[in-house]
């Protein structure tokens, strides 16, 4: 963790499009905190704004790219990873960050997620999981927990929620992490590691939908929701050292999986160079 003086040097306003503010998010939406953590991590990694591309899909999370003062790309529903793959293959010099939501990434874009993870192209995917389709009126999403009420599950959700980190790790992502929005500094450092990792990095941010999900399920206002989520989390580093008798529903946070599989872009470029007759083993 950085000391206070260095943390002070970061000014979020230098990364935010001032004329766009205040943003469109509801009061207390965790996506706003994730936005700060993301730009803070980008700042700390020393990423040049002109060498950064932020790609986002559709949904509450998809709108976040409009507030980041960099090259931003608001794409179609479920396909930000697809657009980002093309972008990264064409412009390997860019740092590509994808902002996506749980519905965007796991429902309509589920296939794109597993194939992006399989290719292991150097993209950072930030999945903001608020457990609901907030923008379209609070429908059930793939990560909605069992028993929760949404506008399409008026009797409570009977389907089990998705473990996105397990999915990404199984599909071959090079870096998989999870963090709650309450832990801003931890989230910042996790996103920083994900950006620095050469390969497909997947970070699940457990965000809060206060206005729709929280209200429908009587979870209290945003401070209560954040504290509840924090009390459920259990840093992955302690997985073997601490038995948690009082926390049966713990969430694993921190770096969850890491592998040093070869990054896809290098293989692609070697093939392309071979076809052009510029060497390689074609």
């Amino acid at each position, binding site marked *: 963790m950085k000391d*206070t*003086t260095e*943390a*002070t040097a970061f*000014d*979020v*306003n230098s990364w*935010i*499009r001032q*004329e*766009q*503010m*205040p*943003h*469109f*998010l*509801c*009061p*207390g*939406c*965790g*996506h*706003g*905190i994730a*936005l*700060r953590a993301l730009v803070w991590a980008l700042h700390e990694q020393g990423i040049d704004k002109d060498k950064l591309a932020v790609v986002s899909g559709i949904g509450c999370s998809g*709108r976040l790219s*409009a507030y980041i*003062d*960099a*090259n931003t790309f*608001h794409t179609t529903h479920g396909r930000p990873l697809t657009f980002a793959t093309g972008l990264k293959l064409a412009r390997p010099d860019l740092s590509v960050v994808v902002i996506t939501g749980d519905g965007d990434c796991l429902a309509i874009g589920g296939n794109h997620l597993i194939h992006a993870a399989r290719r292991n192209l150097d993209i950072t995917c930030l999945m903001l999981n608020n457990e609901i389709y907030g*923008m*379209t*009126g609070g429908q059930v999403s793939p990560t909605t927990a069992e028993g929760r009420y949404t506008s399409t599950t008026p009797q409570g959700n009977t389907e089990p929620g998705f473990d996105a980190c397990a999915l990404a790790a199984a599909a071959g992502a090079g870096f998989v992490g999870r963090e709650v*929005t*309450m832990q*801003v*500094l931890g989230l910042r450092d996790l996103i920083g590691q994900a950006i620095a990792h050469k390969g497909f990095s997947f970070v699940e941010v457990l965000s809060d939908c*206060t206005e729709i999900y929280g209200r429908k399920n009587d979870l209290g*206002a*945003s*401070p*209560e929701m*954040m504290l509840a989520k924090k009390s459920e989390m259990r840093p992955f580093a302690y997985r073997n050292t601490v038995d948690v008798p009082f926390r049966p529903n713990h969430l694993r946070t921190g770096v969850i999986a890491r592998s040093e599989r070869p990054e896809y872009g290098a293989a692609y470029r070697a093939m392309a160079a071979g076809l052009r007759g510029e060497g390689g083993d074609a």
Partner: protein
Amino acid sequence: MMGEKMNRTMNVLIVGVGGQGVIMVSKVLAQLCQADGHDVKQSEVHGMAKRGGGVFSHVRFGPKVWSPTIPEGEVDILVALEWAEGLRWLKHLKPDTGTFIADCQKIVPPFACRNRKRGAEPAYAPQTPEEIIEQVHAGYVMDATGMAANLGNARASNTVLLGALSTVLDFPEEAWIEIIASTVPAKSAEINRAAFAEGRAWAMGGDKRIDVTAGGLHKAHSEIHHPQVDTILEITEEWCKGCDICVKMCPERCLRLNDRLKAELALPDLCTGCQLCAWLCPDQAISVTNIPVTEPAE
């Protein structure tokens, strides 16, 4: 003014951005016309524009209304809850007799910021209220959001515009107030009554009026002096949405929400400059800067 008009259909078009209350305005108007014995048809587009997209609603009333939508160039009164949305629909207004009622509040959409150069103007409608008001037969451009905010809740801006609309249509004031009271939730009945009166009083001042207050961000600035560090805490009021996170999360409990539901530093002496409020603010409204003091204060 309504006597000779009422032999034919009156067309009112209400436009705005999702979440502003376009549907509420049209609902009030339609119910009022219905109660007055007119034939009313109302149609709207909403749904995917739940938050941030364009919303419009057609209200037609008269002895007999056949079609639910208004042809282009046939709108008698255009009520715009957002400035650019009003301009977008301006060509639907009757060129010679139409009335234009608009809030000068700007909601800049994301695609208006394609030019990323620092300090670049967003590609938002460049027309000024003065230019537009010269083009229309009768025009009212008001800072309805500002008026509603002064009354205590900016979300009542649609009722301020209803107040202005009420001066153009020939319905008794009591009927308007009664319908509004039955439409809005009971807890906001009082502010809506005040907002309606404010808008009506403003519009009584005559047509072709412009009332635009200057924009700009208000930053509540506080300085706290510690033995080795000076802390500067700034809260951008326009960005704060009153979510209560900073108030509840502050370890010293030195923040609070004021009567306008904006965060403010209530107990500056307790602030330690820990920055937790700034880190957890989803709206990026709080900034905490710690400046080390070179010489310890006496």
